[in-house]
């Protein structure tokens, strides 16, 4: 299976099943399209040369020989051989290696798109106690098998409303990791309004990653992320705090992270605004919201949004050449050292490797399912008791999803988000169409940026 597309002035051919990325000239790009069906269906080299070679110029024949050489090396028109491998891989014992700790089901902001309501996840407000958090970390350690690196995200609501417990849990984690032969990687996700110098100093010492919520331009941000009551936005408060935080972390191991909605389908301007503020690690994601919400993205928005990704990619290229580059999370792609195929195909791990823990110690498959009782997996005292539900998540992978079968991006999204699939189609093995369309576009842009980088290196050499 291949995916051909033109972007940034390049003719790009992705060999889906090997991960091979080829840049070809215009003539070869057309030639690949002509031979694609026969080449995919296994027609022999001789038969392809005989069928297509007649009447070809010497140059075209030369290009055809090159394509057939790549096919012989399984770098073009390669086959998907992974389904039995993933089946065997998924038979392995389930271990938990990551937790999203809902330190606070409460928030001082009233963000309009928050999937947690206004922090309380459609339930009661509440704070996680140290005792509940400690039991969660103990559960993680005891059920992580031989995994050394354990990830814990302090999440909310707004976790800094319960910062003392965050500190206590980090101290507890650090106190047991040597004895248990584990390495905790902590992340703090915050709206920034309570991020003091003292907390920042703590975060810089203990948090491997800091996720700082901001949507971009002031008007865009303040419209969607006001304080509770909705009258005042939070932009002016957080921007200087975030700038200080980013610099204090040497512009690494953090993200300013935003959400774009139907209200700012020109979101490239928001990303660039954050870059103009001096941030080097930027993530801006599409909102996921019920279709009846006025800020929800629509199918009609997709062409506009895809164009925005093109605009952003081209501007990133320009800024990189000027020495003013920055990273955009969804355009980052590690072609040479990226994940193994097991990781790429076995899903996001929600409900298995990854669980969310409420302030009361209940386990859910991920933060997006919290508060939906049919997705209650268990709790910190009894462990995972709804094993039938866990099995359903465990079986969730690229091959369990019909929509992924012929998608070129399946090795880059791992089958997409189970929560989005469920919330739009009542089925964790379905596909959320808007999310899929945007993911495909982001993968195209990400690969194009790598191609451009490679071309720049060629020019320099």
């Amino acid at each position, binding site marked *: 299976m291949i995916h051909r597309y033109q972007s940034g002035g390049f003719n790009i051919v992705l060999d889906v099943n*090997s991960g*091979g*990325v080829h*840049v*070809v000239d215009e003539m*070869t790009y057309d030639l690949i399209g002509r031979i694609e069906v026969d080449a995919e269906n296994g027609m022999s080299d001789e038969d392809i040369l005989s069928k297509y070679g007649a009447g070809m110029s010497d*140059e075209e024949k030369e*290009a055809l020989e*090159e394509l057939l*050489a*790549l096919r012989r090396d*399984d770098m073009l028109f*390669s086959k998907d051989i992974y389904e039995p*491998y993933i089946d065997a*891989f998924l038979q392995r014992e389930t*271990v938990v290696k*990551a937790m*999203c700790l809902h330190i606070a089901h409460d928030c001082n902001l009233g963000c309009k798109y928050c999937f947690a309501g206004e922090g309380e996840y459609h339930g009661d407000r509440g704070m996680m106690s140290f005792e509940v958090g400690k039991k969660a970390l103990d559960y993680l350690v005891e059920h992580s098998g031989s*995994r*050394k*690196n354990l990830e814990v995200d302090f999440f909310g609501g707004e976790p800094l409303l319960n910062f003392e417990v965050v500190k206590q849990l980090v101290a507890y984690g650090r106190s047991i990791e040597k004895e248990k032969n584990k390495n905790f*990687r902590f992340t703090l*996700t915050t709206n920034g309004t309570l991020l003091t110098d003292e907390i920042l100093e703590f975060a810089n010492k203990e948090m491997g*990653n800091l*996720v700082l919520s901001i949507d971009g331009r002031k008007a865009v941000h303040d419209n969607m992320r006001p304080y509770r009551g909705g009258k005042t936005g939070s932009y002016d408060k957080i921007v200087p705090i975030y700038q200080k935080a980013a610099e204090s972390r040497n512009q690494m191991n953090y*993200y300013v*992270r935003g*959400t774009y909605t139907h209200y700012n389908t020109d979101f490239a301007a928001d990303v660039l605004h954050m870059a103009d503020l001096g941030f080097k*690690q930027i*993530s801006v*994601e599409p*909102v*996921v919201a019920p279709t009846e919400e006025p800020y929800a993205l629509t199918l009609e928005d997709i062409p506009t949004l895809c164009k925005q990704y093109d605009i952003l990619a081209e501007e990133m290229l320009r800024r990189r050449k000027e020495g003013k580059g920055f990273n955009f*999370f*969804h*355009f980052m*792609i*590690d*072609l040479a050292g*990226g*994940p*193994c*195929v*097991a*990781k790429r195909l076995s*899903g*996001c791990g929600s409900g298995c490797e*990854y669980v969310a823990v409420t302030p009361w110690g209940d386990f859910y498959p*991920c*933060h*997006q399912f919290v508060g939906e009782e049919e997705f209650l997996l268990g709790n910190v005292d009894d462990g995972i008791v709804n094993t039938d539900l866990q099995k359903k998540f465990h079986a969730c992978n690229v091959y369990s999803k019909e929509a992924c079968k012929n998608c070129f991006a399946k090795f*880059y999204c*791992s*089958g*997409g*988000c189970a*929560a989005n699939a469920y919330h739009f189609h009542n089925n964790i093995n379905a596909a959320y169409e808007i999310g899929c369309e945007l*993911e495909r576009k982001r993968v195209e842009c990400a690969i194009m940026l*790598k191609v451009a980088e*490679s071309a720049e290196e060629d020019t320099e050499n």
Partner: protein
Amino acid sequence: MIMIYGGSIMKHVKTLNTRDFKKSMKKGGCGECQTSCQSACKTSCTVGNQSCEQAK
């Protein structure tokens, strides 16, 4: 555009250095890499942009 690929001179195709998915079947699956939603996405699933712990 001229490059060497597998001992052959390629004039029409430039192949980027990518990790061969098939080869990763042999040594992959250790599970030490980051969980998708623990990075900077909480509402989508992004895997391709992560790095392999073994390759670090």
